[in-house]
Structures are given as C-alpha cells and as structure tokens.
C-alpha cells in the first residue's frame, strides 16, 4: 500500500495531525492510542471504585437516608465523573492527567459540556459486548483512534506535549554544512544529532557511516554533530 501524504511533508508515517486555526497557524496534535487510554481508564476506574466504596461505608451510618444519598452519589460518579473533569479540568480526568492525555473537540478547542456528556454516555455502546471490545475495535479502525463516542460527539483524545529538555549534542566546535545538502538532508542531520542520546555509540557510528563517502571524514559522528551545532547557531 502506498504511503498516504496528507499534503504536509512531515506527516507521512506519523499519526500526528495538523489543524489549521483562524490565525493560519497549524496545531500539531498527536492523537492518543488505545494502550495509553486503557491505562488512563484503569486509573479512573480504581479511583471511582474506591470513592464508591468509601461513600457506601461512611453513609451507611446514617441509615436508609444515607443509603439514598449514597445511591445518588454513586450514580453521579458513574456517569458524570469523566464529564466533570473533562469540562472543568482542561479535558483531563485524573487518569488521563496521569497518562498525559486530554480530550479536545475535533477542532482542537477545549471539549464542551454537550460533547463530553455525549461521548461518555455512549460508553454504553463502546463497552458492548464486554470490556470495551467495540470501542477498542472502533478506535484501531481510524487514524485518530476514536471510539464510537468520540466519532459521534466530535471529540479527540490527544497527547499533552511534555516539555522536552534542550538537546545537547555533547560535542563542541562547529563545521560548515556542505552547500549541496538540501534542506531535507540538513534536517536529517539535525534529527540524527537530536536523537543520538537515545542511540548506543555503536548504532550512532553505524548510522553515520552511511554518510562517510559524502562527508570525507574518519569521524562521521562528530562531524554530523558539529554541523548540527552550526545549524542551531551554537558555538
């Protein structure tokens, strides 16, 4: 199957999507996949269960009136717990906050009350027949990982971008970038330097060795990192 290019060159293989805002800026959003959402759900489920257990134990002291209040509170917890947090806490239930994901409307704006209630009521259908099977199947069938409730309510679960530390290429000195490198090629060099921390030294040299014939150097790793220093304007 050919790769699909949705118009923007840096979005080919990624699940990222970019939304254009009225300001003409593009919002880079990363939809959250099934795994991380299950994690978030489990945390919320534990919190809810614990809260319900506490409510029943404490209010049982008050007799049948307490049971009545406990029933109402348990009902509210079951149906409105996610709605409350999504609408009034920046789209994040405690579980989602822990997993660094949040709910937004399809256009990237904060989720509204109606949309949040709708997506959470439709959990009933996503749950069918057991354990959210429908929801999981639905969310792996589309590129934005939407379960049925998200599809109908027009909502989206995205990653909160975590602040990244300023990359350090662990090398000093600069080196001019060969003039015949295209911008994409330059970008590849930069990306290599930024990713190098997560690669073993052996893998680094293995990757950098591909450029040996072009770079005319015995230490391609150092050369590339120094070029990266030049590109970001560091000394």
């Amino acid at each position, binding site marked *: 199957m050919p790769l699909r290019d949705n118009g923007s060159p840096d979005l080919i293989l990624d699940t990222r999507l970019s939304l254009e805002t009225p*300001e*003409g*800026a*593009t*919002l*880079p*959003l990363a939809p959250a996949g099934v795994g991380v959402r299950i994690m978030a759900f489990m945390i919320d489920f534990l919190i809810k269960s614990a809260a319900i257990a506490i409510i029943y134990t404490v209010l049982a002291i008050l*007799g*049948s*009136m307490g*049971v*009545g*209040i*406990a*029933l*109402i509170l*348990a*009902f509210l917890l*079951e*149906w409105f717990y996610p709605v409350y947090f999504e*609408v*009034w*806490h920046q789209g994040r239930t405690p579980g989602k906050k822990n997993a660094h994901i949040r709910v*937004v409307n399809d256009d*990237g*704006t*904060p989720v*509204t*009350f*109606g*949309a949040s*209630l*709708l997506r959470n*009521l*439709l*959990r*009933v*259908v996503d749950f*069918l027949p057991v354990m959210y099977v429908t929801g999981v199947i639905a969310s792996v069938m589309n590129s934005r990982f939407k379960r*049925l409730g998200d*599809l*109908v*309510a*027009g909502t989206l679960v995205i990653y909160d*971008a975590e*602040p*990244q530390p*300023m*990359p350090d290429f662990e090398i000093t000195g600069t080196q001019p970038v060969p003039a015949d490198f295209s*911008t994409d090629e*330059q*970008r590849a060099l*930069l*990306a290599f330097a*930024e990713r190098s921390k997560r690669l073993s030294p052996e893998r680094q040299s293995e990757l950098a060795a591909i450029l040996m014939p072009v770079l005319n150097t015995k230490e391609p790793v150092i050369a590339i990192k120094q070029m*990266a220093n030049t*590109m*970001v*304007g*560091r000394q």
Partner: protein
Amino acid sequence: MKQGQFETLHQLTWAKCENLLTVLETKKGRVADTDLADFAPLYRKLCHFHALAKERQYSSYLVDKLGDLVVRGHQQLYRRKQPLLQQFLGFVVTDFPRLVRREQRYFWLATALLYLPALLLFFAVLWQPDLVYTMMAPDQVDSFEGMYNPTNRTLGSARESGTNWQMFGFYISNNISVAFRTFATGLVWGVGSIFFLVFNGLIFGAVAGHLTNVQFTETFFTFVIGHGSFELTAIVIAGAAGLKLGYHLLNPGNRSRIDALKQAGTVAIRLVYGVIIMLVIAAFIEAFWSSNNILLPWQKYLVGTVLWLVVIAYLTLSGRRGHES
C-alpha cells in the same frame, strides 16, 4: 537568521507567553486586565514564530516547543463560555419543548414503541391471566403482588422519611441509568432504543394487567399516576433521541455517516438534558408523593391527572411565542 540568534532575540516573549498560559490553566487563574488584553496579540505572535521556525527548518526541538505553546494558547483563547447555569432557564422554558416538537417524528415513534406493547400485553393478560408468566418469573410476580397488596399497608401511615430518601436515591440512579442506556444503545442502528422501549412497555403492561386481575387496581394506579407523566414521557424522549442517532446512521442523506451522526448527536444530547431534568422531578414525586398512604385515592387521581396535563401542556405550548429556533 541562525536558530541561536532567533532564540536569544525572542526568548523573553516566549517566556512571557508561557507564564501567562500557566496562570490561565490553573483552576481559578486570574491575570491582570492589561495582561489579558495582551494575550491575543501575544498568541498571534507565537503562531508567527512557530510558522517561521518551521519554515526556516530550525531544530525540531524548537519547533515542537513553540508548537506546544501554540496548542496551549489555542486552548485558552478558544475556551467557550460554559453556558450551563446561564442558559438553564432558557432551556427549560423554551428550548426543550421546542426541540421535542421539532423532533416529534421520533417522539411519536418512541411513544408507539412504548405504549402499544404495553396496551397489547395489558389486554392480553386481562384476557388470559397466565400470559403474565411469559414476561416474568413467578417470584417476580409475587413480589409485585406483595408491593401493591392493600392489606400489606398500614393505612394512614406514610413510610418513614428515611426510607423515602433511600427510594429517591434509588429512583434517581436506576431510572436515569435506564434512560441513558435507552438513549445510548440507539447508536446501534436504533435497535437498542427499540428494545428498551418495547421491553419496558411489555413489562408495564403485564404488571398492570396482572394487578388488575387480582384487583389491586387502586393501590397500583394511585401509585403510578403521580410520577408516570414525567417518568414515562422522559423515557419516551430518551428513546426518541436514541432513534434519531440510529436513523441518521442508517440514512445519512448526502452527508458522510460520521457527519450525519455528529449532527444528530448535538441535537440528541440536548434532548437528554431535558430527560435528566424530567426524571429528577419524577423521582421526587415517586419517592415523596406517590408512596404517601395518607392521601385518599381521589386526591391522587386528581393530582396525577393535573400532572399529566402539565406535562402535555408544557411540551405542546411552552415556547410557542417568540421565534422558534
């Protein structure tokens, strides 16, 4: 311009933006008016920086950092006013009845799906009393008999008020959950809504028929007439909202199915708001009025009839004046 120069030149602006955003994102974030006035231009600048950084192929670290700030700024700038409290009255007085009238195709269909099976089984059980056991197990029938047996009631004494509260909680959580399920399962091509409406209709018809056979009519009908107006109508509307979802999935017209569902969803969820309100009222009546044994049957029938007229008049007449949206 080199990335390093670009960063040193504009770092202050970004930091200012980030600080402002951090404050706005807290629960009761308040910023000075002048800062607030600066926010929109600052956000536009940020968009500009982000676009520049991308266009100039600066390192992805910088592009991502600016992109993250843009997303956060966008979340704050386009934060919608939550119209919950402000629009509540307007919704109750005019919008909800108008909406029900506009979607009356689904309303009447759901009404038929609930009441026709109920009537059918009511008369069937009157004709052949044993038919009640096709719907319910014998011990269920016994428990219904126990509930409405006049000899089980100590006349003139209402339940303890604590029990009323317990039942109020039970009616709230049980009935609204049933309504939510009736609505949500409508997404499955309408099948779920149809099932819940017909099933509840059949049960109601069977119970009513059976209790008529054993001549507990007075205790039963004086109990249900009070809250029935709100409760049954609310279940019908929940079913109607579910049917709307199912219908738009089956027949999206010239839109994609997803778009058809989204549009139906925004209308349907507003019907559900009304359903919640009606069921809270119904639970209140059911717990504190219907169960009251001090009142005489004619008083209950009278009030019950008035409540039915109130619900009908509300849904047919309220919000007629002024422009229908």
